[in-house]
């Protein structure tokens, strides 16, 4: 087991390295740099010193250095929690991202917890009440959740909230808590504001999970050991929990690997629509202005999150399933 963990952790390092390099080069690919647009603005305003100012800025951001040198400076700084300067307002990236990353992390882990709990309850209910009203309702919700894209759902909810209830569901906390230190009131406010985004982001994941759990559980429920148990007079709930549920529960652990990229993708676009103070909107802005350091840091953060999530899911699966532990790859 230890060998397995070590191998997995060691494998993470080259993966992250490749991703970070790729991302850094891609963002820097288009012609021009983040100073260009600022200078254009200054020139438009008739600022005579614009060109000189541009040179100063480029000097400051080190944009005259070759790309690979900037990349290694950036990578080297990461270990000191120094991600270079953000081009937008000449602030260290590290100062900009702290709270956003924390909120993103909170939002994404809440979403995954929501997906698990909701799909577990609904899935088990739908499977044990097959072809009844509840099952049909669950299947319908599942279908809608799978096919309606989350950002459109967010848009519609935003509209409904605004027009019919006079609510603004944007943001992640009440305005009075913004930039305030952590407190109980802030926690409650964040929790209240999390509800809508978590449901919107988790919708498709929940729908998929319900489908799989229902199908798996239905398969198990038809097996002979269940019939035997029932014939022997086991109480239904005990019978359900003790045997078939244990088999059917596998996808919950196995699927976190597939779930995580979806949740992260969803959280980026939904937080742009709902203008949440998470990494999404800032990443979008950074990409649009070619703020290489900022955008690359966010993307690396996303990558680290995914890779760690995958690692956790692999470890959990390995703990559960000896076939994986001993290195056999599962064919799909």
């Amino acid at each position, binding site marked *: 087991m230890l060998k397995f963990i070590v191998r997995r952790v060691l494998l993470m390092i080259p993966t992250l390295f490749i*991703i970070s390099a790729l991302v850094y080069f891609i963002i820097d690919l*288009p012609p021009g740099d983040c100073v260009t647009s600022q200078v254009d603005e200054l020139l438009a305003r008739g600022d005579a010193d614009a060109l000189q100012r541009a040179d100063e800025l480029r000097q400051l951001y080190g944009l005259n250095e070759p790309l690979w040198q900037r990349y290694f400076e950036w990578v080297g700084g990461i270990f000191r929690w120094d991600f270079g300067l953000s081009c937008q307002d000449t602030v260290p990236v590290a100062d900009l991202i702290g709270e956003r990353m924390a909120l993103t992390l909170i939002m994404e882990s809440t979403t995954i917890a929501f997906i698990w709990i909701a799909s577990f309850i609904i899935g088990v209910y739908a499977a044990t009440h097959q072809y009844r009203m509840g099952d049909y309702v669950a299947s319908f919700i599942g279908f809608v959740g799978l*096919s309606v894209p989350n*950002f459109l759902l967010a848009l519609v909810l935003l509209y409904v909230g605004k027009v019919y209830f006079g609510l*603004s569901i944007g943001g992640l906390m009440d305005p009075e808590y913004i930039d305030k230190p952590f407190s109980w009131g802030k926690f409650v406010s964040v929790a209240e504001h999390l509800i809508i985004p978590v449901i919107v982001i988790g919708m498709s994941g929940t729908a998929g999970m319900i489908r799989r759990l229902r199908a798996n559980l239905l398969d198990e429920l038809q097996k002979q050991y269940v019939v035997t148990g029932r014939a022997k007079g086991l109480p239904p709930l005990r019978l359900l929990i003790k045997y078939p549920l244990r088999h059917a529960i596998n996808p919950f652990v196995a699927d976190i690997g597939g779930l995580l990229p979806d949740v992260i993708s*969803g959280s*980026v676009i939904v937080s742009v629509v709902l203008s949440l103070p998470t990494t999404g909107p800032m990443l*979008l802005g950074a990409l649009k202005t070619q703020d290489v350091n900022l*955008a690359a840091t966010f993307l690396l953060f996303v990558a680290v999150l995914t890779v760690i999530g995958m690692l956790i899911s692999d470890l959990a699966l390995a703990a559960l399933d000896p076939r994986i532990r001993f290195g056999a790859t599962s*064919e799909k």
Partner: protein
Amino acid sequence: MTDQTSPPQSGVPKSGVPKSERTAHFVNREPWDPYVAERLTADQEKYYMAGQWKLMWWRFRRHRPAVVSMIFLALMYFSTAISEWIAPYDLHSRHSAYIFAPPQEVHLFHEGKFLGPFVYGLKTERDLETLQRVYTPDPAKPMPLRFFCSGAPYEFWGMIDATFHFVCPPEGGQFFWLGTDRLGRDLFSRIVYAARISLTIGILGITLSFALALILGGLAGYYGGWVDNVVQRITEIIKSFPHLPLWLALSAALPVTWSPLVIYFGITIILALLDWPGLGRAVRSKLLSLREEDYAAAAQMMGAKPARIIGRHLLPGFMSHLIASATLSIPSMILAETALSFLGLGLRPPITSWGVLLNEATDINVVAVNWWLMLPVVPVILVILAYQFMGDGMRDAADPYA
């Protein structure tokens, strides 16, 4: 015709039964068909003789929602061929007198009298408090719509000058069925034209991704070894990384100086680049098992080249399955394009897709007043639902064990 002449009776040994009570010996002179018991009825014959694709079509036909979805999608795609006829206005024609005009209702009866489809003229006022334009229908002026008429001039497919439309605005009036946007452009016409881009980007993207999956998955599955290893690692990295941020980064990398058409192809390529691993994996694992089959070995021994073995002998065995899975990933492509354009990093005007239209709806304060800006959501969801139903039906039909 049966020969009923009595057989010769001479030489028959005497038995206990009197001759008159014995049944006459009977021989049928017709040629005997030994397979008579196994003869198929016409229906059965049709079924057993049907090819793989025909069988699948029959199975697919049983799946009602899938058939309805297919018809719907066929109509949608057909509409992209004749967008110019369907849309009453041009994609870019602006009506500066009608900025943010609300959808006009189509009426049939005016003061209890049947008039045929008509709209009321719009009266424009300015709200002096909010400084917004307020449009009210003017019930004094019913204006009948014109059908199969000559209206705003356009170039059919950008080549032939024409003026034919299915529906035209009434004489001296306007017809904004779904309202107008901030430049006074007719939303319905724009949705009709945008279907061209939104619907084709899915098909184009999936074609590219399909080709990539066949080539890379095919190489990995057929050769195995280090080729397989490299391809596997690449697919793992792509599959495990969240697509949206990567799409964003890649499309932000497309230079602003490129023409919108080049951007369109660029976006398609980006979508395909991240989409192929799913299909590629399916190709690989199928090929891995199929290349061990006897017929593959036979082809190899007869000197067939790998390309021929893969393309001619192995791929057809699971092509139907692949096409079904590819269909299921078209909606995610359409959605990805919509999302990118919605965020302002995808297609750029003048190329117009549903996502570009939705980009106008990013500001909730504008949308709260002009709700019709959200209408492009409707075709997006309908098309995605239809693709999903059709894909489900195709997958069931392609499954030989169903």
